[in-house]
């Protein structure tokens, strides 16, 4: 009787150790799982290929192609110089798509001439990026 009792005690002890171990390990597994992704690198690349779609004529298609060429081969090699958001090249292509090739291009050129830090008082500023806000302008916009 005594022996059985002792065995039973041992068994109980073993059982508890097993349970404790299981919970402990499952907890640290949870930790590992939770902290597994904290050094993940996110790539935030803008896909400029979307501008190739929705062109209404050949001139716009040409402009979009030039834009894509500029963005992927030239602008990519450049520290960010433009003081605006959207940048001058994006402004140009959006302006062309909104106002047509001639007028849109002219507004884009005008934007290039304004791309300096001489007149920050004319624009709102983004706090986080320190860029000036100058969204594209439609020629038939009222007021």
């Amino acid at each position: 009787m005594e022996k059985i009792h002792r065995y039973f005690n041992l068994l109980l002890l073993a059982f508890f150790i097993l349970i404790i171990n299981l919970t402990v390990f499952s907890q640290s597994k949870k930790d590992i799982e939770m902290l597994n992704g904290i050094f993940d690198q996110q790539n935030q690349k803008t896909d400029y290929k979307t501008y190739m779609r929705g062109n209404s004529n050949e001139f716009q298609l040409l402009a979009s192609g030039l834009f894509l060429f500029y963005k992927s081969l030239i602008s990519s090699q450049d520290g960010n110089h433009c003081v605006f958001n959207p940048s001058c090249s994006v402004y140009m292509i959006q302006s062309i798509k909104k106002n047509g090739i001639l007028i849109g291009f002219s507004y884009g050129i005008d934007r290039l001439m304004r791309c300096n830090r001489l007149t920050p008082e004319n624009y709102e500023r983004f706090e986080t990026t320190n860029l000036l806000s100058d969204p594209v302008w439609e020629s038939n916009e009222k007021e």
Partner: protein
Amino acid sequence: MKYIMKPGILWLMIFSLQFHSYSQNLEQTIEFADKQFAQQNYQLAVKEYQRALFFADGKKLDYLYQQIAHAFFINKQFGQALYFYELSYKTTKNDSIKTEIIFNKSQCYLLTGDYKHSEFELMNLKDSLSVYFTDRRKFYLAVSYFGMEDFKKSENYFLSLLPENEKEGRSEVYKLFHTKKNLYRPNPNTAKVLSMILPGSGQMYTGDVNNSLNSLLLTGSFVMLGVVMAQEYSILDAILTAFPWFTRYYKGGYLSAKKIAQNKRAIRRDKTYKKVLEIINESKN
């Protein structure tokens, strides 16, 4: 009389029970909130915990604060979670809850990239912890130091998590930390200097062939333009036309070489970190 009375009492009791089943006291409110929490209905849970807090009169404050903090944590509102963890820490008298909360706060900091604060919290823990909490602390410190780029300390803490007899795992972790490629390459400054000497070479060093050729061709073409202008027209014309563009893309080139190297190094570090965690994870099995 006897026959009327008995059902009367029964009806009374049933009626009153029904009446009371609509009402909610403090315990029931907390229970309801707990249930909502378990069903991942966190916004409602937070509101009900707040109701309980408002009427609790100082009872169970630590538990309520902690649950609210958990809900915010799950919703990735780490600032708010930290605030309520702090309140819970201040109100509780239970040491093991205090320890648990410190780990929770450390998690908040680690997930928001504030490794320094995470280390600071873990340093606040008492030295006399159970084996379980000591191991957990080591693990958290190892991660914090990895984030702070203090790889020596990080390695030591990771190694201390593996028992002496697991020689294979230990040597693997050692190897991961002592292979330069895993943590220190590509070196951003090397990439920058290389690109300063020859545009594109820094990008090549990081293994980014596309950007390397792109940078070389672009700066090269402006050099060519300058040379042609100087020959055809004058040196003044060359300086006026080609030079500003050359400097723009020359500078852009070596800065982007540095950035590419930093990015690639971060990716390698992340890979190394995940491998180490895998080894730790396997040793727990």
